[in-house]
C-alpha cells in the first residue's frame, strides 16, 4: 500500500489460510480506543491466520497420506504411466472427510467460541470508535461555526 494512504489495505487471500491479510493504518493521533481496536483486529487476524494455515496444511497432508495408503492397498502407485497424479474418487474420499471432521471437531468448537467472542468485541469497539469520531467531528464543526 502507498505510504501516504490514510486507510487500511486488504490483500489477496493467503496461500495457506485463504484469509485476506489487512495492513492497518496507524493515524498519528490515534486515541486509546482506536489503538485498542486496531490491536484487537491485529490479534484477530493473527489468530485466524495461525488456525487456518495450520488446519489447511494438516488437511492437505492427511489427505495425501490417506490417498497414498489407499492407493497402496489397491496396489497402485501415486503416479500412473503418464505421470499423472492418481486420485481417488469422491466415494472413496468420503471416509477420509468423515474422519477428518470428527477428529477436528473439538478444535473447531474451541475456535468457534473464540471467533465469535473476538468478532463481537471488534464490532463493538468499532461502534465505540465511530461514535467517538462522530462526537469529535460535531465538536469540531461547532468550533468552526462559532469562529
Amino acid at each position, binding site marked *: *500500500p502507498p505510504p501516504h*494512504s490514510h*486507510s*487500511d*489495505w*486488504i*490483500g*489477496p*487471500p493467503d*496461500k495457506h*489460510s*485463504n*484469509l*485476506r491479510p*489487512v*495492513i492497518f493504518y496507524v493515524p498519528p493521533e490515534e486515541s486509546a480506543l482506536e489503538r485498542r481496536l486496531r490491536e484487537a483486529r491485529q490479534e484477530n487476524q493473527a489468530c*485466524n491466520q495461525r*488456525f*487456518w494455515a495450520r*488446519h*489447511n496444511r494438516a*488437511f492437505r497432508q492427511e489427505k495425501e497420506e490417506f490417498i497414498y495408503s489407499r492407493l497402496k492397498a489397491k496396489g497402485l502407485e501415486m503416479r500412473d504411466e503418464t505421470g499423472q497424479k492418481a486420485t481417488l474418487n*469422491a*466415494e472413496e*474420499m*468420503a471416509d*477420509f*472427510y*468423515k474422519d*477428518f*471432521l*470428527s477428529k*477436528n*471437531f473439538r*478444535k*473447531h*468448537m474451541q*475456535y*468457534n467460541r473464540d*471467533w*465469535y467472542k473476538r*468478532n463481537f468485541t*471488534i*464490532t463493538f469497539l*468499532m*461502534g465505540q470508535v*465511530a461514535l467517538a469520531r462522530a462526537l469529535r467531528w460535531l465538536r469540531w464543526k461547532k468550533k468552526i461555526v462559532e469562529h
Partner: protein
Amino acid sequence: GFFVWRLKGAGTGHTPCQFVHLCRAANDRFITFQYFNFLKRMYVTQYNKDLSQRAKPKSDPVVSPFHELQQLDQEKKVIHQISPISPVHQPWPETSRRNELREVESAAESEASATAVRAEPKEDRQWKEMKLRLDELPGILARLSKIKLTALVVSTASAGFAMAPVPFDLTCFLLASLGTGLASCAANSINQFFEVPFDSNMNRTKNRPLVRGQISPLLAVCFAASCGVPGIALLTLGVNPLTGALGAFNIFLYTCCYTPLKRMSIANTWVGAVVGAIPPVMGWTAATGTLDAGALLLGGILYSWQFPHFNALSWGLREDYSRGGYCMMSVTHPGLCRRVALRHCLALIGLSAVAPVLDVTTWTFPIVSLPINLYISYLGFRFYRDADRGSSRKLFFCSLWHLPMLLLVMFTCKKSGLDKEDKNQLLGETHGRAMEMRLP
C-alpha cells in the same frame, strides 16, 4: 423462505451453460436477462453462499447484477502484471457462476491478461484500499443481503399469501412482501457477519463482501439492523402481529440457531428446513391473520422440499465441509443423508394429497402434481441407491424446478373463494325475497 439460503450454491457444469451463452452476448443484456429472469429461474445463479445454508430465502451468494457490471469496468481499467497465480483448486460444485462469468470476461480481455485467469479475477490479486465507495455500495449491500435469495424467499411468501382463501388485498400483499424481504436481508447479513473466516475458506463463498473487506463488520451489522427493525415493524404494525412475530422468530432461528449449529451438529439441517418453511406460513398469516391448517401444510411442503434440495447439494461439497468444520449429514452420516432425502420426496406426495382435504386446493392438485412428485421421488430413490455425484446432481437440479412448478400448480388448483356456504346463503336470500314477493 429462509431455507433458500441453503440454496445450494452449486454452480455446476450444465445449468450455467445457457447462462454463459447469454453472458457472452452482451453484459448489459445479461444483466437485464438475469434481472428479469431470476424469478423464473428460482435458483440462485451466483452461488457464493455457503452451501450449508439451505434456506432458499436467505440463501447465499447471489452476486448482484450491478456488481458484475462494476467488475467488468474495473477489469477494463486496471491493466496490471499478472503475478503467478496460486494453483486454483476447483472442485466441481465450487465453480461459481461468477467464476465462469469471469472466465468469459477475462477471455474477452485476454490481451491484457497474460495467463488465463481461472477462479481469481485479476483484481483479486491486488491489494485494495479498505475504503467504502458509495457507488459500489448498492452492489455490496445486495451481495451482503443475498438479494436473489431474498427474492426467492419473498416469492415463497407470496405463494403463501396467494394460497390463502381470502380475497386478495394488494396493500397487505405488498407490505407483507416488503417486510419479509427486509427481514430476509437482515438475517442474511448477520449470517455473513458471523461466518467470515469460514466463508473465506470455501470456494463458493469466498467472494462475499465481508470476506473481501469491501464493507466493515460494523456497517454490516448496522445494515442488518436497519433492515430488520423496519421489516419486522412493518410486518407487525402494517400487516399483523402474528406475521411480525413469525418474521422475528425466523431471523432469530436463522442467525442464532442455524448458523452456529452448522458447526456443531447435523441437526442444523432440520432447523434450516424450518427456517425455509416459515416464509410461506408468514404469507398465509399475512393474508388471513390466523395460523390455520393450510398455512402449516404449505410450510410442511416447503419443509420437506428442503431435504432433497439440500442433501443432494451437500453431497458434492463434502470436501469443503470437512475442511471447513461444518457438520453436515453428507459428511458424517451419508446413509442418513440419502434416506432423509428420499423420505421427504415421498412426503411431498403425501402432503400434496392432503391439500384438498384441508380445502386448500381442489382434488386436481394431487393428480396433476403426481408426475413431478413421482419424478423427484424417483431421483431421490436413485440418489439413495447409487450415492454418487451424478444422482445427487440430478436430484438437486430437479429440486430447482420442482418447487416453482409445484407452487404454480398449487395456485392454479386453488379452491375458489366462493365456497358452498356462501352459495347457499345467496340462494337462500334470493329465495327469501321471492317468498316475500309472493306473500301479500
